[in-house]
């Protein structure tokens, strides 16, 4: 048991030894922020679902210690039963009530939600999940994705104080994901509901998460703030195809004609697809390392809008794929990763401290 | 030798077991016994039950079998005459009326089904008690159940067969009911028409009616048939 330095946090320490029924053991100790989204990331069988079950109280081990803010959910003396934990749980396999229609499943949650903290409205959720037309159907009559959407809606309508989501979007198509993800994020930020989000998709994780935990075989491999973690070379997932960084700043310019906005870093600007952000509002952008290229001098006549001056901070050839090199570049104090071929890095003779131009092909708005 | 198969009314179980054993020792003839209420045995006989002899608890059923030619008309005998008794596990006065009036629950056999029940009803009517005690009556389907009601003391008193009192371990207290209070509880036996052992059956019937056998039967608590 570690001392709780921060009262406003989710503290999760779980020890589950291997048993004769299972060779799987879990041993983690996490101090998670009590706002924003924490991603649980890791290979199949690494214990992600098991951790969520412990947090929900569906699995109990009395050598564990789980605490949200100043309420103890689990320690060696007490164990708050699951129905007293103010959580919403989206199960990996939907887990709808087969005896109730989709609507019945939602009403089940609404009837039991704490009325005084209703921040999530029925109609919003129905509209967002696009489940209006299937409300009368029983779970057995729904498609995989429809079931999953009802399950998400149900978990939201219980008006949780902590949302646990086990690969909630795995069965959904891109378009739906792109509708749901930003909403989820905004909702939870607005209502101050922290989310613990299990996903296999780094893309989703990066889009959504502030904090990230990488698991392997029941142990924490990496953990930390997503900005830091993503910008760090050599962590287990900077080698993923999707290695990315998140850039935070304020909107400084709009161009409604071209559907673009600009964010300023130091004295340079990055263009991105215009969202709902007003001038002066904060915005988070995701820049994938694969979208970043490097040139030695500023070249005009290119379709790449974003061409910024940066300094090479670090260079690492990927030990697993030696054709690739990851370069960290600093624009003022903001780190950006560029994934380029090792051959290019050699041709350009990149060196630490060298000043170069980064070309950023595409930028995604996170919030 | 072929086995002789007897269908015997339940109230006669104890005597017939003894008599069958005696008979087997005496003649070497094997005897098989089946028990049941007279009504059941009657229905079974009508539907081909493989019995040679039927020892009923009444006279009506053997007669009915003769009528419908399931039994040999010349074979009917009254092999025993029941002795009705008022019995209680707890102390009992000598007066029937007072004992009955003082009791809470009185067990009798179902008058519709069991001859002992019919006799009990007649006795109560003869004593002009029927109307006063009717509310206290509990009925056993047969005389065996009636005995159990009293034995378990759920009924404090009951009309049972005197033979049961003698056979049972718990003797309790008994008042024999005078036979004038009710019509005779005659138990008749017949040889069944489809029996393949009619001669052996006749021999057994003869044994059953032999004075020494009849004497044994009275020792089990039955009245002598022609008393």
């Amino acid at each position: 048991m570690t001392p709780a330095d921060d009262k406003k946090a989710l503290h999760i320490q779980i020890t589950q030894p291997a048993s004769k029924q299972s060779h799987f053991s879990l041993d983690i100790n996490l101090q998670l922020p009590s706002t924003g989204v924490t991603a649980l990331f890791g290979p199949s069988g690494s214990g992600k679902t098991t951790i969520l079950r412990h947090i929900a109280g569906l699995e109990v081990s009395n050598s564990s210690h789980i605490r949200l803010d100043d309420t103890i959910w689990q320690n060696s003396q007490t164990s708050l039963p699951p129905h007293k934990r103010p959580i919403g749980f989206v199960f990996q396999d939907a887990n709808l009530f087969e005896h109730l229609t989709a609507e019945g499943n939602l009403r089940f949650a609404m009837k039991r939600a704490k009325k005084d903290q209703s921040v999530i409205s029925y109609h919003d959720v129905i509209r967002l999940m696009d489940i209006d037309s299937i409300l009368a159907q029983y779970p057995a009559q729904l498609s995989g994705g429809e079931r999953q959407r009802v399950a998400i809606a149900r978990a939201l309508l219980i008006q949780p104080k902590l949302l646990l989501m086990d690969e909630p979007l795995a069965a959904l198509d891109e378009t739906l994901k792109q509708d749901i993800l930003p909403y989820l994020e905004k909702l939870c930020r607005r209502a101050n509901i922290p989310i613990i989000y299990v996903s296999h998709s780094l893309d989703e994780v990066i889009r959504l998460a502030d904090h990230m935990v990488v698991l392997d075989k029941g142990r924490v491999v990496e953990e930390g703030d997503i900005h830091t973690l993503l910008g760090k070379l050599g962590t287990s997932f900077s080698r993923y195809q999707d290695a990315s960084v998140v850039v935070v700043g304020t909107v400084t310019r709009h161009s409604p004609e071209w559907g673009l906005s600009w964010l300023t870093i130091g004295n340079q600007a990055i263009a991105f697809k215009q969202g709902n952000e007003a001038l002066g509002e904060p915005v988070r952008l995701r820049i994938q390392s694969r979208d970043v290229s490097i040139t030695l001098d500023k070249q005009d006549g290119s379709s790449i809008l974003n061409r910024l001056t940066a300094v090479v901070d670090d260079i690492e050839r990927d030990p697993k794929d030696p054709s690739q090199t990851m370069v960290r570049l600093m624009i003022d104090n903001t780190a950006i990763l560029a994934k380029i071929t090792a051959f290019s890095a050699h041709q350009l003779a990149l060196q630490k401290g060298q000043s170069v131009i980064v070309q950023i092909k595409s930028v995604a708005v996170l919030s | 030798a072929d086995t002789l198969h007897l269908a015997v009314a339940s109230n006669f179980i104890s005597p017939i077991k003894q008599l069958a054993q005696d008979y087997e020792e005496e003649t070497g003839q094997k005897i098989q016994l089946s028990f049941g209420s007279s009504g059941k045995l009657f229905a079974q006989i009508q539907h081909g039950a493989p019995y040679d002899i039927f020892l009923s608890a009444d006279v009506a059923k053997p007669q009915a079998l003769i009528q419908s030619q399931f039994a040999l008309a010349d074979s009917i005998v009254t092999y025993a005459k029941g002795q009705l008794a008022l019995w209680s596990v707890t102390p009992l006065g000598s007066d029937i009326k007072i004992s009955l009036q003082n009791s809470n629950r009185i067990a009798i056999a179902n008058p519709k089904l069991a001859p002992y029940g019919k006799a009990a009803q007649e006795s109560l009517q003869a004593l002009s008690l029927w109307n006063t005690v009717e509310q206290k009556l509990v009925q056993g389907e047969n005389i065996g159940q009636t005995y159990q009601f009293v034995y378990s003391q759920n009924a404090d008193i009951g009309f049972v067969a005197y033979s049961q009192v003698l056979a049972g371990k718990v003797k309790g207290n008994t008042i024999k009911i005078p036979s004038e209070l009710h019509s005779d509880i005659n138990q008749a036996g017949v040889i069944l028409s489809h029996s393949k052992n009619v001669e052996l059956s006749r021999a057994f019937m003869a044994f059953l009616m032999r004075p020494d056998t009849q004497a044994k039967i009275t020792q089990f608590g039955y009245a002598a048939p022609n008393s």
Partner: protein
Amino acid sequence: MHLTSEDIDAIWLTLKLASLVTFLLIIISTPLAWWLARTQSWLKGPINAIVAMPLVLPPTVLGFYLLLFLSPQGAIGSIMSNMGLPPLPFSFTGLVIASMLYSLPFVVQPIQNAFLAIGKGPLEAAATLRSSPLNRFFYVAIPLARPGYISAAILGFAHTVGEFGVVLMIGGNIASETRVISIQIYDHVEALEYGQAHTLSLLMVAFAFIVLAFLYGVQKHQKSKAVSGGLL
């Protein structure tokens, strides 16, 4: 078809008895079946076996032992009479209790199996939706166990209607109080009143058929939701 007033009394009594017994058994069996379906205790096997035990004794014999236990001198009866309670044998209440004892396993088993078939998924989902153990028991477990409840009601009801030996023994065949239809039919058969027996039997079978067909109708309706047409 002509019925004596005794027959009609017996019919009403039977209906009352069977409905009451089925109702009470379902109430009692629900927590028992739940416990049996969920517990890991070693007591589970023995208790399960004990529930089924009354079945293996012939009904009249079971009735006999009940008489012994429930009589004012008996183990249970004496306690009851010390508490000032009226004796159970030869009363409708006694009949209800005896019938419950005898039909218990037929009600417990289907419900227990239905609870087992639910699995932990739906209950866990309910737990995460602020549903307390009792709440999820009533709003999730019981609705999902519906086919089991219907089976239980059918078997419990039918068995109580036809039940006979125990009733005969503990009831004492008192008109309008403990003389149920099964005894009435039995009496007719024993008294060689076969015509009357046929009439009553037919009536009983017809009536039971309607009740059971109704219960199955409910069950059918429920299933068509879960299992779609398919080829299997």
